[in-house]
Structures are given as C-alpha cells and as structure tokens.
C-alpha cells in the first residue's frame, strides 16, 4: 500500500502528516462559495487550489482526486497492464456541485452528466489509464473505508492486480446548507470526545492508496489492510443506533477477517465527529468489543483540525494509522482538552505520543446507518 492525499492541513501526504503531528488547524472561513446566510460559515476548505488545475474535467471533485493521484504516483507506479488496474473510490456527494451548475442559467449537458455521483471516479480512471473495474462507493461518511474493503475483495478474487482506492469529497454550498439545516455544525471549535463538544465542521479532501496483493507488491510499503467489515444499523437515517449495534458488528467482522483479537490492537483511529451522540456511542462500542484492553489502547480522532472530510475521512484515517506506525508517533486529537467521563478511553490529547503501533483499528459511520471498520498493519517498526 502506498498513499497520496490533498487536505486542508497539507497539499500532499508529507504535508498532511506534518500537519497532524504539529496539530495544524485547517478550519477557516469558507471563501469559495456563498455562506453569509448560513449559521456556520467555517470549514476545512483547501485554499489556493485552482492555481494548479490539472487537465481533464474542471469540477473540483475530479480535480481533488487528480491531485491526490498525482501525489500517490510520486511514490508508486501502476506497474500492471491497464486492464488489470481497478479504481474504487468512495464519496458522499460525488459531483453534486455540477448538478447545481447544470440547473443555473447556462448550465450544460456536461454539468448535468458531471452531477452523477460516479462521474469523478470515472474521470480518475480515465486519467490513470485504468481499464479494469471502476467502482463508486457511497456509504456516506463511511465511504472511504468501504472502498478500501471492496478494493481488497477485488484483489483477493483476482479481478485486478492493482487497485487505486480511497475517497474524496468537496465543500460546496449543497452540503454546507444541508448540515447547517440539520444543526449538526458547531459554532465553536471541533472537539472530539471533549466534555464540551458541540458538533462537527465539514472539510474537503481526497485520499488515495495503491493496493496490491502481498505477493505482488513492489517498492516501499506503507502497510497492509488485514481486514474490513461493514454493517447497517437498521435504526435511523441520520443518527447512529443508540446501542451502536452496526458499528459493533462491523468492528467484530473486521477483526475476525484480520485474525486479530483485542490484545493485538495497538491504536484506534476513531470516527470522532465531535457530536455528543456519536462520540459516546463509539466509546461504548469500543469498550464492549475490546473489553478491558480498550482503556489501554491509544486512540485518536483527526477531524478536529481537518473538519469532517466525509468520503475522504476514513481513507485519511487509515493512512494516518499506517504513517503512525512508520514514524513511531500517534498524532493527538486536536480540540480535545477537557475529558468527558462518558468517553473514558485513552484518547491521545495535547501532544503527539511516541508510540509505534503495529495493528490499528479504524472506525467509520455515516448517514443511512452505514458503519465500516478497517484493521491495518503498519510496515514500520
């Protein structure tokens, strides 16, 4: 596995990692579209991006994906025949901003076609020259994890020899207006697992990894995906199941596939949206699944500095786990200052911690009752 990314705290993988360990705050006032009529006007917006526009579709979603792919390809080569290279990309919003454009005066057929949620992933496949399967996953904010899981399945089945997998989403008026109306956005700082947490802020990013079967992997490796699991809550469209049953099922499935037990887990990258319900439910599920070991495992959540990057979030968090293993540092949870007794786990706060995790667990939840979990093994250490 190799990786590439573009995020609000860094325009490539190295800058992303630097931003994590220095606790960078990528939350700013949104400038690219109108927000003055919204309750909350801030988010993890990537600035100065238009200046480096890549050839191909002009939509921001595709351009973010291209930027992440360019970064990835500085570290890895697609060394397989084109028809054996697959693309599996997760997104919560696809090219919906293009649909907004299609409906404006002067909107074109190209805008309308770009409004379909699978348009950016196909644009990425064309740009990469990948002629294998192209899958667009949309399990809301768990998309970036589901995509890596499906990519692993494609490799295991032999449907592809290389898979460029990951997730992306952009900040646009559509999603800002929606979350603003739901009152999910905080006017304060994003504070995952903090006693004062009051909601999330959105961000935009793209993150991609190049995956291959173990025996086919060449060059430096970031790590391995050992297992993945998914589940529906069957409970509520926008809120996690109060008992966290879907998340629990997904975590247990991922750990079973990975062949790991609680004592094997060295790091948990939590979804950690900083909504009162999510962080409490997630904590309870981790306590249930990991048992007494849960209290001894370093945990973090990286949405405090990035915002919730939706379709990109889980891929970024998986990459963070692997980089933590390589570098021997676990980034801290930006925004966490006052611990919540209801979230009584070992959340890394205040400063990065010198730990070199081997096996990591990453959790994700999304609208529609989507849950996903990944178990990863870093190549470091």
């Amino acid at each position, binding site marked *: 596995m190799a990786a590439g990314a573009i995020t609000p705290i860094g325009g490539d993988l190295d800058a992303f990692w630097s931003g994590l360990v220095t606790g960078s705050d990528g939350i700013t006032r949104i400038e690219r579209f109108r927000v003055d009529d919204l309750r909350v006007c801030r988010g993890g917006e990537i600035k100065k991006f238009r200046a480096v526009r890549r050839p191909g579709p002009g939509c921001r979603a595709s351009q973010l994906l291209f930027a992440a792919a360019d970064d990835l390809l500085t570290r890895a080569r697609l060394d397989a025949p084109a028809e054996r290279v697959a693309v599996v990309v997760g997104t*919560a919003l*696809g090219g*919906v901003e293009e*649909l*907004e454009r*299609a*409906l404006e005066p002067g909107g074109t*057929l190209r805008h*309308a*076609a770009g*409004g*379909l*949620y*699978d348009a950016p992933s*196909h644009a990425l496949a064309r740009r990469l020259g990948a002629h294998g*399967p*192209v*899958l*667009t*996953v*949309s*399990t*809301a904010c768990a998309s970036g994890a*589901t995509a890596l899981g*499906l990519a692993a*399945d494609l490799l295991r*089945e*032999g*449907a592809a020899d290389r898979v460029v997998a990951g997730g992306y989403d952009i900040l646009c008026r*559509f999603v800002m*207006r*929606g*979350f603003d*109306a*739901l*009152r999910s956005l905080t006017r304060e700082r994003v504070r995952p697992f903090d006693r004062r947490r009051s909601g999330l802020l959105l961000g935009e990013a793209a993150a991609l990894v190049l995956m291959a079967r173990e025996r086919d992997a060449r060059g430096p490796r970031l790590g391995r995906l050992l297992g993945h*699991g*998914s*589940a*529906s*809550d*069957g*409970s*509520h*469209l*926008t809120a996690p199941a109060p008992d966290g*049953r*879907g998340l629990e*099922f997904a975590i247990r*499935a991922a750990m079973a596939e990975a062949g790991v037990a609680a004592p094997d887990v060295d790091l948990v990258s939590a979804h950690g949206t900083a909504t009162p319900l999510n962080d409490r439910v997630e904590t309870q599920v981790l306590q249930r699944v990991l048992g007494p070991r849960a209290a001894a495992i370093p945990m973090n959540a990286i949405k405090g500095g990035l915002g919730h990057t939706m379709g990109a979030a889980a891929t970024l968090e998986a990459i963070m786990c692997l980089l933590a293993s390589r570098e021997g540092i676990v980034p801290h949870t930006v925004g966490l200052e006052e611990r919540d007794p209801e979230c009584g786990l070992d959340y890394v706060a205040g400063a990065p911690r010198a730990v070199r995790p081997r096996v990591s667990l990453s959790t994700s939840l*999304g*609208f*529609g*009752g*989507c*849950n996903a979990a990944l178990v990863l093994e870093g190549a470091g250490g």
Partner: protein
Amino acid sequence: MSGAAVAGVGLLTGWGEGAAALPADARAAARGRRVVALARPALAGERFRRTTRECLLGVAAVEALLRDTGLGREELRGSDTALVYVTAAAYGASNLEFIVGEAGTGGALHFPYTAPSAVPGEVAIEFGLTGAYSILIGGPAATLDALRQAARLLASGRCRKALVLAVETFAECEKLWARARWLAGRPLVESAACALLVPSDSQTPLVPAPAPAELEALARVRGGETLAVGPLVGLALARAARRAGVLALTGEWRGRPAGLALEAH
C-alpha cells in the same frame, strides 16, 4: 470465487409488477413518452409519510421479492442478511428538490434523503437488516459489481443471504435526462428490483460473460432503459421463463462493459 445462486427477484417497473407486466417492445409501448413513471407506493406507516418516492420504491421492491419467494420478513431480519444497493441516479430527484427548494422547502427534513444511502437506510430500518452493507453508484455494470460483491460476501461466510437492491427514478429530472443524446428514442423506465442471493452448492464460477448477453438485450427491448435495474430485469425475465442453471449477465456503463455468470434456482 463462487457459491452464490439467485433464489428470487422482486421487480417493479413503470409497466407494472413482475416480468409478466413487461411489454414485448418497450419503445413501442412507451408511445413517445420519454419517461415511463412509477407511482409513489402507498405504504402504510407514519414513518413513510415524509419519505421520498425512491425510498418507498426500495421498500416496495423488497416486498415484491418476498411475494416472489414466499419468504416472510422474519427470514430477512438480522445480521445474517447482507444488503448491497446500487443506483445510477435515483438520488437525482431529492438532490434536485433540495437545490431548487433552497429558498423554501429544502431543509433539515429533506437533506438526509439527498444521500444515496437513504434508500438502503430506509430498507434496512423497515426490514431490520443489520448485516454487511454496501452501496455502489453506476449503471448496469455497477449492478454486476453489486451481484459479484454479494456473491463474495456469501462465499466468504460474511452473510447467509444477500439482497441486491436497485432503484431508478427519472420523472423529476426528466428535463435533465432529455439533454442526454445517447438516450434518444429509448424510454427511461422507472423501476425498482431486489434479488435474493443464497449460497450455492454448485460453486458457479463468477467469470466475465461474453457481452452483450441475450438477457441484456431482452431486458432492454422489453423493459426499456432502466440503468442499474437492467440486470435484475434480465434475472426476472429468466426466472419468469423458468430458466435455471447458469445465466450470463452483461451490462455496460460509461463505455465499460462488464459481465458475470450467475446460477439461478
């Protein structure tokens, strides 16, 4: 990779319920209509009052599957049943409403339904599905990917039954679809379908089938353009014709052909 068979298909289209409702020639039967619409299903329950039409169609498609198979709801409930949902565009109506309703109706109640995950989310709530879960976006090729993923989940023991659900609606976005020249002369037929896959003893290989297979052509001629639902229309036609054994399914989307061979009971 193997071990999955189709045990049933529920199909609703603008032509009616089931394969028997499909005309011999969808183009002729459409009589110039660009969209052959499906009415909003009248499902009982307060929870469905504000739900979108595409969500109700998803629920109705699973109910049609239960009628086709004779299974009860309790046989789907729980974590042993996986749900893989696929659509090319069924989120378009809710997206459009949210965008054009900016000054009025678009708000907290409507926004969650703009996500593609709303349809399988409502289906999971209604039928108590808490097993493996995935959502793919795209046309017929994505549905073949969804069937393949369902088969993988079965083969690896991650579920004991798998539902592959597809929904497509077009009426609300008819003006946008009218701009798509590749659809010229082909009626867009609103549809929802759900296939039940179960483990198979026969270890049917899931290999690319030569494209386009007979069922793909038949589904298009009789069903019209149903995008992601197309391969499930083909399965419903095969089931109605009592064709068992290995079926070749094919589909194409955005210039990418795909195919697989799948056993049908």
